[in-house]
């Protein structure tokens, strides 16, 4: 959606994979938009549905019910968040509203509250549209789920792209002009004039319906499901952003809402209902975001959470090129890898790199190694694709293994990407 707002994706319809008509034709699935399920009677296996246009209500019977109610943008309880000009970005209709507002009102100054992934994407989109952008967050660094040595690079990027960063500041309220349109936001440190504001503070699972039906909730108040996506109520399943998932490393229940996970959970739910059930093994928490021309991503545990989970984390941070010195580079990258000591098990990694550096490729290598429970020794011996246009002879994940093994064995290694100590 940020790319539709900025114009990279021309039409909002391009974001739609299939329309209700296509679902009927291709899948023999009836899709009714503008219809809200307002009540579940789990005892009689019926739902009460309201047609939002006509107001008509009717009951429908099920043998199997799937809750895929998603998540909603968190709107803080401060004054003025309902003003014209203040937006969230969660549903497709939100992005259409933002785009229309920009077209009709030509705002010049944008404030983004929240320096997480949505905030980062929208910094770029607003700048691309020529707006002055200020990002406000109570955290002391952008991308708070990255460790400081990497998030500092994101901060440098934002500043070099002309984004004003007001970190360590919280939103206190929003004020309107005489016409009732947003004109200023108040923070804990002062005020800030603006013409448009985006609240990108986070999301919450949309579980009101589930709760009222007696469906048990779990981590972060998301719907509690098992590996087969069953809830506590017979015949009722849940999948996607409304449901919990499992941390595949620690085994603990968690809530990491991502579109990639949603599709896997959905498939697992359908297989549980009608097919050959396959347990959903959970996730290692891999995520990636583009911040201007930087790739920012992480997988697995960070050091603090690893320690909380009973591991003895050791980390190594280093910089790497994507290609050998003698071949043109798509951009360098900074990496951090976290392993358990003394087992050497890979617990997680974080990367920040140029958009064309292939930092995303290295992140995915670490994601697989983390999920597979591999060790630093496994990293050192990875058989990765090598030719000069694609990587160095000792590519970043292998170098990470070399450096980490050196640290764990107390025999520090100063190897480089050419394979020389």
């Amino acid at each position, binding site marked *: 959606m940020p790319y539709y707002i900025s114009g990279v994706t021309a039409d909002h319809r391009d974001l739609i994979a299939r329309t209700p008509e296509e679902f009927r034709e291709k899948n023999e699935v009836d*899709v009714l938009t503008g219809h809200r399920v307002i009540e579940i009677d789990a005892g009689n296996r019926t739902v009460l549905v309201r047609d939002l246009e006509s107001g008509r209500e009717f009951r429908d019977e099920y043998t199997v019910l799937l809750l895929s109610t998603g998540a909603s943008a968190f709107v803080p309880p401060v004054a003025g968040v309902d003003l014209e000009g203040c937006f969230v970005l969660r549903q497709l209709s939100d992005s259409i509203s933002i785009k229309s507002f920009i077209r009709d009102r030509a705002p010049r100054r944008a404030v983004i509250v929240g320096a997480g992934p949505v905030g980062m994407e929208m910094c770029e989109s607003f700048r691309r549209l020529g707006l002055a952008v200020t990002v406000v967050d109570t955290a002391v660094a952008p991308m708070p789920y990255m460790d400081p040595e990497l998030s500092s690079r994101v901060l440098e990027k934002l500043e070099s792209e002309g984004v004003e960063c007001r970190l360590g500041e919280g939103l206190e309220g929003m004020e309107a002009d005489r016409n009732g349109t947003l004109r200023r936001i108040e923070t804990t440190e002062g005020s800030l004039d603006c013409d448009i504001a985006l609240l990108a503070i986070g999301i919450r699972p949309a579980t009101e319906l589930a709760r009222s039906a007696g469906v048990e909730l779990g981590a972060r108040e998301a719907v509690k499901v098992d590996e087969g996506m069953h809830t506590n109520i017979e015949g009722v399943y849940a999948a996607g952003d409304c449901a919990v998932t499992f941390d595949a490393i620690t085994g603990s229940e968690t809530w990491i809402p991502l579109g990639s996970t949603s599709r896997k959970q959905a498939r697992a739910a359908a297989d549980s209902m009608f097919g050959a059930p396959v347990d959903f093994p959970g996730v290692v928490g891999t995520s990636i975001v583009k911040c201007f021309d930087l790739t920012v991503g992480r997988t697995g545990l960070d050091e603090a959470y690893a320690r909380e989970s009973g591991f003895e984390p050791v980390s190594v941070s280093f910089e790497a090129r994507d290609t050998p010195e003698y071949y043109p580079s798509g951009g360098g990258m900074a990496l951090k890898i976290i392993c358990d000591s003394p087992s050497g098990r890979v617990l997680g990694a974080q990367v920040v790199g140029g958009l064309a550096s292939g930092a995303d490729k290295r992140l995915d290598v670490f994601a697989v190694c983390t999920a597979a429970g591999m060790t630093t020794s496994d990293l050192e011996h990875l058989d990765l694709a090598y030719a000069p246009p694609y990587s160095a002879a000792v590519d970043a994940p292998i170098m990470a293994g070399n450096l980490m093994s050196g640290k764990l064995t107390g025999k520090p290694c100063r190897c480089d990407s050419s394979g020389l100590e």
Partner: protein
Amino acid sequence: MDKLIVVGGVAAGTSAATRARRCCPDASITVYEKGEFVSYAG
């Protein structure tokens, strides 16, 4: 006959509905979505 009702049709709901159709050709499958759009990328 099996009757699947899906509440919410953005990502998980529509993926599950089409997978359910693959697994169970005879089921009746209905997706209710409160919004105007279904099956879209964030």
